[in-house]
């Protein structure tokens, strides 16, 4: 593609001429700072492009944090590239095709291996400005892809059950504890709560499409999402049992219908006041709790089945990478910024902990000084799972980047009673398998 557009350069020169004219007469004159690629000059200064996603709150916090970084490092200029999650991925895809990728960028979870397979990540061994002295070998091993250390973690998420303690108190209930905190125990509690609470509340959102909790379910069964060699790590039985778990709750009235919660991905602002608990990521409490400031939210780690496979807990790490084809002159500066992002509590003081608990043990200790109560909940939930024995976890292979969309679709089919859970699970595996084979 690049070749093709080069060949057309001559023809296009005419267009470029027009570009100048048009810009001049319409008064746009390239009126924008930057114009793309990072650059360096003799003075050792560097311009870096930093891309991330989120909502406007996160946009503002990270912009402030990056500005603070620039004040400390006047030789480094950061050009920010922000968009919401879906738009971020659209833009990244386009930029990758043109090999015009930001120098540092967040990596969407389903695309880790796709990006990796296409050389988008720079090897971090030998980036002198990146300080790894606080980390244990296990921490770094957890980040390696195919044995290469080429991304850093923005933080750690674990799957949790978040519940509204204010509601529980009003309704005079307590969630099952200890050995009763199992999937069956939860189901029993949930059905009972929904049937008997005086306010007509549901016990939980209908959430079969949530990736982190599904992964917890599978790992307790001795399955996993993906295998080390880039294949599907779960069986149709595994998915079907997961869908059955949710159908059971929905049919018993413990969870809302798709209609009542506005789709499989429940709208929190819509159902937050009507559900006691919610299956989600540990970090979501930070944004979601603010929606209902008068209520107190608490986190529970995943229920554990009596026969759960040893080593089932896991940590999910959203990743931050340096672009593989970064101008090598900018690499040291990029390392400095990466260091600031991963190993510095000053940054987290500004951004908050929406991207999870720090991996760096020293930083994880430091942030407890300023963590809000909700953030402290999150930190505790992560520490709990982090202290447990954990089997390795592998990222989604190339070709599987649509797996969450497929999961959503089969969840809809089941919830709308268009398909049995077993048929839906089988169809999901077949579709994914075909996509992975095509990408191979």
């Amino acid at each position: 593609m690049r070749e093709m557009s080069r060949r057309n350069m001559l023809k296009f020169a005419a267009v470029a001429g027009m570009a100048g004219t048009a810009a001049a007469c319409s008064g746009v004159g390239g009126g924008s700072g930057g114009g793309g690629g990072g650059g360096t000059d003799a003075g050792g200064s560097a311009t870096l492009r930093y891309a991330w996603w989120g909502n406007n709150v996160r946009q503002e916090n990270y912009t402030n944090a990056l500005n603070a970084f620039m004040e400390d490092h006047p030789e480094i200029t950061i050009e920010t590239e922000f968009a919401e999650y879906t738009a971020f991925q659209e833009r990244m895809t386009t930029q990758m095709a043109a090999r015009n990728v930001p120098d540092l960028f967040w990596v969407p979870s389903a695309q880790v291996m796709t990006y990796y397979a296409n050389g988008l990540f720079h090897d971090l061994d030998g980036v002198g400005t990146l300080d790894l002295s606080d980390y244990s070998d296990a921490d770094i091993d957890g980040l390696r892809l195919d044995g290469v250390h080429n991304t850093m973690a923005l933080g750690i998420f674990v799957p949790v059950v978040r519940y509204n303690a204010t509601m529980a108190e009003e309704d005079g209930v307590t969630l099952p504890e200890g050995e009763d905190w199992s999937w069956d125990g939860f189901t029993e509690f949930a059905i009972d709560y929904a049937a008997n609470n005086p306010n007509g509340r549901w016990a939980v959102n209908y959430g079969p499409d949530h990736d982190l909790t599904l992964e917890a379910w599978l790992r307790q069964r001795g399955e996993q999402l993906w295998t080390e060699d880039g294949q599907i790590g779960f069986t149709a039985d595994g998915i079907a049992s997961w869908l059955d778990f949710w159908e059971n709750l929905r049919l018993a009235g413990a969870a809302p219908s798709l209609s009542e919660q506005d789709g499989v991905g429940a709208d929190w602002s819509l159902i937050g006041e009507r559900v006691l608990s919610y299956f989600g990521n540990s970090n979501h409490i930070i944004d979601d709790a603010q929606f209902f400031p008068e209520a107190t939210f608490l986190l529970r780690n995943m229920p554990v089945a009596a026969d759960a496979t040893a080593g089932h807990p896991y940590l999910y790490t959203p990743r931050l990478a340096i672009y593989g084809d970064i101008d090598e002159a900018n690499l040291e500066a990029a390392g400095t910024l990466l260091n600031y992002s991963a190993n510095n509590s000053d940054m987290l003081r500004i951004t908050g902990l929406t991207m999870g608990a720090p991996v760096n043990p020293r930083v994880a200790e430091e942030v407890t000084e300023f963590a809000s109560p909700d953030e402290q909940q999150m930190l505790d939930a992560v520490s709990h799972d982090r202290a447990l024995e954990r089997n390795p976890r592998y990222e989604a292979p190339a070709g599987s980047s649509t797996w969450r969309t497929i999961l959503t679709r089969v969840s809809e089919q089941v919830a709308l009673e268009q398909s049995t859970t077993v048929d839906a699970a089988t169809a999901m595996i077949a579709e994914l398998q075909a996509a992975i084979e095509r990408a191979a």
Partner: protein
Amino acid sequence: MATATTPSRRKSRLNRQGRAAHVFMLPWLVGLVGITAVPTLASLYLAFTDYNVLSTPEFIGLANFERMFADERFWQSVRVTLTYVLVSVPLQLAFALLLALILDRGMRGLTFYRSAFYLPSLLGSSVAVAVLWRELFGHSGLVNSALALVGIEGSSWLQNPQTALGTLVVLNVWTFGSPMVIFLAGLRQIPEELYESARVDGASVLRQFGSITVPLLTPIIFFNLILQTIGAFQAFTQAHVVSGGSGGPVDSTLFYTLYIYQQGFTAFDMGYASALAWVLLVFIGVMTAGHFLLSKYWVFYGD
């Protein structure tokens, strides 16, 4: 000179017009070569390749096209799109033409009505539409609240695969203001003298409508028909915004272009996406050519 008849003079006039025409079309020609043609031809080539956006395209012949036959989601997107086109275009144009005719003749509050009908089109396919549509068609939205008054308990129209596409048809019809403005512009262009002389001849209003308004408006009706049809085939943003890009529930709003987008931008299968795009192009092309052939029988041009 303009009415020259001898062959050589006629030829020179043609040449002169030909040169002038190319001068007039220069910006468009430059844009065609520099901006449109290269990407178009690139996408044509990519349709015959396996191209994951990141690595080099690999030529695979007709494999992408063969894949479509067995691709259930492809057929689902064809069904969704055809249904949408066949239902929403006639409805939207009917509303647009009817209201343009009503508003064309002077009446009190004309400006207000025209603006009011146009307002929904101004909103375009802004992200706010997703919120609006949920407020209207969601579980406890306006429609269900109205139904509850007559004792019918409804569930979300957006989350029901039987009705989700219907809400997008309503969204399209709701924005009938755009073709209405084009109709209004067309009505304005009909020379008033024609009506005056018709009145002098004692033609009834109905007669004037049948023999002046309709024939002279046919180029614009034709234009709106073609463009709204092409637009409906390419409908994307509405479904993208309302379903959050999934085409759900259960692919019931999986528009063809949404499927192209999912393949190209989410599944990184730009080769297949390009093949899908060219199938659509050929289909719309054949259909438009058919419209043009038929137009000889009903479209009247002033020239």
